[in-house]
């Protein structure tokens, strides 16, 4: 459900940049979604098909690039992917980390003609 406002925002940003470049048509959107962003690609595609209709971005291809989650240990600065369910640093064994990647929701670029 929360993908609807996100999809509306994607459309708005894409149309803004396409118009600025005087594009006739938006062919594709390159979207970056972090592993921790709680966004479902299929859900965004579903809303996209409805809301992009009758705009110059109708039928544009949505390409999703998933960024894996990456944590940095607050004790030893080791970076690691949180595989362990208890989020323990694999190097020093301490708990406590900050998220350095994986929570982003970005529109990276658009392909237009």
């Amino acid at each position, binding site marked *: 459900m929360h993908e609807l406002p996100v999809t509306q*925002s994607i459309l708005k940003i894409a149309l803004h940049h396409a118009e600025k470049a005087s594009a006739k048509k938006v062919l594709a959107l390159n979207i970056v979604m972090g592993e921790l962003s709680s966004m479902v690609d299929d859900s965004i595609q579903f809303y996209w098909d409805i809301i992009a209709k009758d705009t110059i971005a109708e039928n544009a291809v949505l390409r999703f690039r998933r960024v894996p989650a990456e944590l940095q240990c607050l004790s030893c600065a080791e970076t690691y992917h*949180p595989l362990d369910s208890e989020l323990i640093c694999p190097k020093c064994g301490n708990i*406590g980390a900050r998220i350095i990647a994986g929570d982003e*929701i970005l529109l990276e670029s*658009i392909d237009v003609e």
Partner: protein
Amino acid sequence: MSQNIPVVENILNANDRLAEENRARLDAASLFSINIIASPGAGKTSLIEQTLSRLNGKLRVATVDGDIATTLDSDRAAAAGAQASIQINTGGDCHLDAVMLRGALDRLELKQFDLLIVENVGNLICPANFKLGTHKTVLIASIPEGDDKPYKYPGAYCGVDALIINKIDLLPYVPFRMGYFQRGVQALNPSVATFPLSCRTGEGIEAWVGWLIQHVKCT
């Protein structure tokens, strides 16, 4: 001839910008504000009732309640002593966003209050993504939900300023490993202020209310 245009824009930028505007309005009125997020049934409205009853006569409080439907929660807040209580029905949206809060702020005389309590829609996923512009975000966990929630909803737990662990009166009856739960919180949010309490018995509420009053005084 196709062409690639770099954009690199945070998709939630529009919401973030409005959230900043909301924050500026709250700051201009010296009104301290919190956004309460939690799963349905964790005790958001009960906590607001308990908090209001202890702040009665001390602080002037306005509440904003977000729900899919009904005014049940804002009615409860008004009955518990909120000087103003506004209901936002999201009509199906599973979270409040900065536009909805802006609409609520428009309906309040902000300078007449010391504290604004925003009760988000019961949900742990999207309220974490949509900033409102409030000063602090408070998450309510509750014992019957289970001790694995910090691990399952890292996005919600890592961004909050205060964590309430409600329904501690149920600890003798429910398998809940407090150490395991706290380690999960510590992992991504080591500096969060934590308040174990029970809205039913009143145990632990004073410490939470003390935290609120301290922040209101600093605003």
